[in-house]
């Protein structure tokens, strides 16, 4: 028994260490875990980039993008990360304040994003819109605005995520803040009876929704694309709110402490290549930031595209984060 355990341990150790013994330069990218999963964008991007620049790409997936940032902060100057990928614009400012990130020298003004986003360190690589997703087989007349949502009957339930632990959750907070300004707290009070539960992360919420526990779930306008393309299910749709939708632009930056700065810069530029842009839609279920000859998969034509994208300035978000969250907590805690 003990012998077999020893043997098994030895095998795992060897298999793990054998990966590292290679002479090519290695670019280490910290990101959130679902980006690195074998079915996701990470492995495809790794393959394409390694082929192009004769190097190794190593993705390190942490439970969330903010978790990846905290990991880098904890590791400090000793961090092995060359690139942090996956923060969204509302948290990028928090990352900038750590002073750990390097200026990029890319021109991002020509990128294909509905709003202009410029940051000295962080570069966009994909975007989507936060939206409420519903099952059109069960819900024939979805609410198409925040007002209509709050006016739904008492037993109409949505499930959302906690802004303190989840990116979409925080996105909704900013979305409602942008639509209702000073009256945001009052709106949350009206919305509260419709909230079935508030989960820690997106996964639990979406799981509850797919089980039919809630009528709508806070997710992305691009979520239905997964069901259409991977499962051939047409019944999942996102409600197109007439006020406009808050956007999520995902960004990446290079660490000042990186020993592979040249390669890392090539990676940031690669994020704006056609190869990268063709991988994103069906692997990360989001819109790429450059137009490609191949274009988006045809199923993306079935998605709702919001009339307006909101995106608050990162500095404003960072300065008011605590205030917004407290306002939310006061409004929603019964």
């Amino acid at each position, binding site marked *: 028994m003990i012998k077999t355990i020893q043997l098994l341990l030895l095998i795992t150790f060897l298999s793990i260490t054998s990966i590292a013994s290679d002479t090519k330069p290695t670019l280490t990218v910290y990101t959130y875990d679902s980006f690195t999963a074998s*079915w996701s964008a990470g492995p495809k991007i790794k393959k394409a980039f390694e082929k192009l620049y004769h190097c190794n790409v190593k993705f390190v997936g942490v439970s969330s993008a903010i978790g990846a940032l905290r990991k880098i902060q*904890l590791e400090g100057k000793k961090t092995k990360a060359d690139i942090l990928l996956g923060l969204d614009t509302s948290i990028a400012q928090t990352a900038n304040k750590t002073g750990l990130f390097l200026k990029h020298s890319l021109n991002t003004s020509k990128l294909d994003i509905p709003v202009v986003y410029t940051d000295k360190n962080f570069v966009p690589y994909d975007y989507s819109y936060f939206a409420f997703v519903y099952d059109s087989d069960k819900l024939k007349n979805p609410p198409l605005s925040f007002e209509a949502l709050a006016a739904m009957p008492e037993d109409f339930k949505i499930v959302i995520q906690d802004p303190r632990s989840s990116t979409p959750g925080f996105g909704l907070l900013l979305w409602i803040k942008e639509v209702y300004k000073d009256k945001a707290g009052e709106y949350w009070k009206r919305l509260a009876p419709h909230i079935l*539960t*508030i989960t820690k992360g997106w996964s639990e919420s*979406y799981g509850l929704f797919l089980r039919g*526990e809630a009528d709508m779930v806070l997710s992305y306008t691009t979520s239905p694309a997964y069901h259409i393309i991977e499962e051939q299910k047409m019944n999942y749709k996102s409600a197109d709110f007439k006020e406009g939708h808050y956007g999520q632009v995902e960004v990446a930056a290079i660490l000042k402490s990186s020993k592979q700065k040249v390669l890392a810069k090539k990676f940031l530029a690669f994020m704006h290549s056609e190869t990268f842009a063709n991988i994103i839609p069906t692997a990360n279920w989001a819109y790429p930031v450059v137009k490609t000859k191949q274009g988006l998969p045809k199923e993306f034509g079935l998605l709702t595209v919001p009339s307006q994208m909101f995106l608050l300035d990162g500095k404003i978000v960072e300065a008011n984060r605590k205030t917004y969250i407290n306002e939310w907590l006061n409004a929603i805690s019964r």
Partner: protein
Amino acid sequence: MLTQWSRFRSSLFPGALVSILLLSFASLLFFILFISQDDARVTQFDPRVWSLLKFTLYQAFLSTLLSVLVGIILAWSLAHQSHFKGRSLLVALFSSSLVLPTLIVVFGLIGIYGRNGWINQLSLYLFDYSFGSYLYGLVGILVAHVYLNASFASRSLLHIFESIPKEKYKLAKSLNFTTFQRFLYVEWPALRPTLLSIASTIFLLCFTSFAIVLVLGGSPAYNTLEVAIYEAVKLDFDIAMALKLALIQLAVTTLLVVFSSNFRTNLTNLKTSSTHIPWSEAKHIKQIQMAIISLFALFFISPLVVIIIDGIGADFGKVVSETLFIKSFFTSIIIATVSSILTVIFAVLLSDTKRNFTLKNRLEDNKFSKLLNIIVSFLGNLYLAIPSLIMGLGFFLLSQRYEAPLVVWSTIALLTANILMSLPFALSVLSPAMQKTAQRYDKLIFSLNLSKLQRWVYCEYPYLKSSLGYVFALSFCFSLGDLGIIALFGSDDFSTLPWYLYQLMGSYRTSDAAGVALILLAITLSVFILLPRLFRGTDAKHN
């Protein structure tokens, strides 16, 4: 006296060493957090923390009360109904609740009691009426906590019921006691001493419960202190604040840890050879007892059925051929095996030391014994009170200070965390059992002058075998289902099954996730039900 001292002296030091290790590790954790604080950013101490603390105490109190009540009623029914088919399987199943991965349980419960669960669907079909979303909120938290803990309580209490000397029952019967009198005068006095320790363990589990509260709680008003810690660590990156909160939690729970330490091992309760209680119940009492058992079995098994039905549709060929699945599977199994072996060793050493302080023919009369016993028990149970997030963070900071490959650190962190987590439960099983063997056989062994090894081979092992099997299975499953520490250490090179499951859920792969959940459930249940049986196999003749 002196010669006797030499007989058990050698049993003092290994356990003492383990205790010192435990203590120094806890101090190290807090020390590393303390020196890693960033003085520049200290967030204001939020007054909300106090209301969180209040609610945490409130829900934990209610959960404990309900769990213990249900546990007593269930154990009482099971103790008096010892002859129905499938009883031993049912008892084994109940005791597995503690180790089932929480997130899986939550989704199983939702499948039954949720807004779209079986109960609502059935009621809609029959009466065209839905109870709606009653599960979310305090109700959901309580239901889930009772689900997880009542069955744990009933298992431990059933053991107590069965070890009440049969003579007491015979006497009670000859005195013509009613069922109520019998409970009051025969059973309750036996239960009472253990009740406090079981209740405090359950209270601690509910106090630190995180996943359940976050999915079923519904509103931030129903959050626990762990959420505040999570917020401080993840969102504000305020280690000083996290440290403060952890210390508050530790202060509140320390008292309970002392209670849960199980230091009042009740010696009058020796399990007798026959578990059959010589008292056949009146018909209506029997019906009530069977109804209670059936009801709880239904309550307990139906969510598991949901998980099975959900998972069975998954494409298992695809699921098990994923490289990451295979990696996670082996990592999980190896970590669980190693950590459960170590847990068993630590628990044996600690119990071996502990019994010196409570036995008459050893050191019971020494004035320090009582104190030392409490200290050793306290250290064994300490980690019930330390939030896993804080432990994870501590490990992470340590790994930064002392460089080693991440895999090595991840392994160490996971192993340590798993051992510390299952140690309290391991101790609560092994400690009374070892106390018992020593009490029974000390004089004989001392007079035969058996060596330590001989003592173990001929006396202790045959008696402890089934307890050891149970502890092994318990800690194996604990470690298999844990999602606490891995959240900071997981990566593509190092992932476990629950971590992989969470990753699948996080990328729309719900049917694969359901498949992995089923696999995890199947492993947990089979290890938990079969392993103790394997160990028990041959020891029947020894009794």
